[in-house]
């Protein structure tokens, strides 16, 4: 057996054993990935190669700055009461369709700005869960709505961690920048969003009369001025992504931090400075585990390149069309997600995009990221559902959630496959 395969098996064994021992608990994911990178380095007889283990995460650094700053902004906005005001407006709609759409957008908003489904669960999840529970919606459907909303938010632009992971994998030596993904991700996820909206409006949303009460913010009649930072940030990010050649406002980290400052000046409810500072710190720490997992995945990818695994992979896929290799690995990501949630699927995503090379077509990369997102959604343990259960105390079963999640999942994957197959023709989406 070739040495590179033995190294890959050693790394894989650590991932599988770690996943089995810790039952895929999210808190152990960064540690398991780090141990896998160390195991690969040791199996190659190179000792503890700190340089590669430290170098790997740098490929994701700029993208993760956006993620962390997005979450800081969301936390400041949430703790200042602005999102409560927005929610009370969203939940007030009379028609089931309009209410389903508003609540889905509210559920997706944190994921859009931070790229992580966990943000949606932490920020919007409690309000949406309480609203649906109060209206008498079955626990499985509450879980389904929260999980799918957070998942779609993660996949919607501007920030999307699965696309950031896939984009990084395209580079052989230099990481591919996360740019030009706004329209591809929007076109990829919008059909799935609309499909679930139609489903949720009929099967999840209760009729308006069964709503039991208004939220505290509605009763207080708070000023809408507190929503100005959110509107400005959304406008700035959209303009910057749609017209990158003409509009540059400092990138997402700068926009989000400026939005945080403005939000501190325009809160819905006055708070002591100490609480505001705590919100900033909490925001940075909220996505600690997803960001650490991505950084640790960077170490795994770097070690697998160092030990020759990526070279062997390049030689092995030469006879095949890049799209065929991508589709095969996208197919493998789904069972990998079922077994281990993020770690193995993330590793496969990096390899799936590799055949199209550096400065890869963002449409194809976005298509590939659909499989990574789906893998995290499908995971019975260690995925989005586990986060929803642990952080929100939801008593939803995997089957109950998947009973409604299959539709957006299938639509998203179908769009992802089309993006991979017709990526060149869809280049018009890259601005």
């Amino acid at each position, binding site marked *: 057996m070739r040495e590179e395969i033995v190294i890959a098996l050693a790394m894989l064994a650590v991932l599988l054993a770690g996943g089995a021992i810790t039952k895929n608990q999210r808190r*152990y994911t960064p*540690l398991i990935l780090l141990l896998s990178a160390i195991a690969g380095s040791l199996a190659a007889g190179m000792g503890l190669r700190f340089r590669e283990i430290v170098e790997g995460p*740098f490929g994701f*650094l700029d993208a993760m700055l956006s993620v962390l700053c997005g979450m*800081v902004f969301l936390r400041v906005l949430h703790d200042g009461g602005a999102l409560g005001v927005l929610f009370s407006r969203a939940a007030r709609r009379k028609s089931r369709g309009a209410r389903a759409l508003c609540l889905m957008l509210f559920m997706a908003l944190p994921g859009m700005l931070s790229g992580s489904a966990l943000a949606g669960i932490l920020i919007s999840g409690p309000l949406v869960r309480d609203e649906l529970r109060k209206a008498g919606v079955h626990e499985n459907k509450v879980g389904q709505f929260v999980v799918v909303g957070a998942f779609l938010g993660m996949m919607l632009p501007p920030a999307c961690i699965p696309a950031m992971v896939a984009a990084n994998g395209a580079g052989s030596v230099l990481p591919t920048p996360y740019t030009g993904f706004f329209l591809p991700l929007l076109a990829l996820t919008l059909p799935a969003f609309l499909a679930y909206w139609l489903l949720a409006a009929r099967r999840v949303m209760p009729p308006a009369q069964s709503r039991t009460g208004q939220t505290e913010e509605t009763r207080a009649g708070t000023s809408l001025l507190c929503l100005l930072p959110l509107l400005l940030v959304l406008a700035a990010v959209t303009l910057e992504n749609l017209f990158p050649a003409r509009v540059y406002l400092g990138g997402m*980290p*700068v926009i989000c931090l400026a939005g945080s400052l403005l939000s501190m000046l325009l809160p819905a409810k006055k708070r002591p400075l100490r609480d505001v500072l705590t919100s900033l710190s909490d925001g940075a720490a909220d996505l600690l585990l997803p960001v650490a997992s991505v*950084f640790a995945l960077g170490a795994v990818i770097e070690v697998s390149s160092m030990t020759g695994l990526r070279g062997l992979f390049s030689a092995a896929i030469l006879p095949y069309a890049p799209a065929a290799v991508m589709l095969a690995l996208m197919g493998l990501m789904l069972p990998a997600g079922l077994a281990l949630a993020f770690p193995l699927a993330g590793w496969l995503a990096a390899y799936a995009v590799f055949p199209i090379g550096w400065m890869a077509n963002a449409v194809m990369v976005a298509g590939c990221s659909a499989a990574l997102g789906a893998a995290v959604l499908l995971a019975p343990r260690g995925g989005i559902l586990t986060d929803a259960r642990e952080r929100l105390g939801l008593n939803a079963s995997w089957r109950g959630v998947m009973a409604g999640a299959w539709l957006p999942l299938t639509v998203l994957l179908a769009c992802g496959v089309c993006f991979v197959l017709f990526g060149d023709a869809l280049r018009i989406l890259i601005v």
Partner: protein
Amino acid sequence: MYFIIAALLVLLLLARAGKKCPLPELIALFLVIAPLALRALGVK
């Protein structure tokens, strides 16, 4: 500009490190802080 943002995030995360933190979270914290600190210091 990104150096300053990285430094700010390191400070915010370090503020959390003072609280009681189990080992897996501590490792995750280190994994996030290390590259951010190197970027803040201009090493990378």
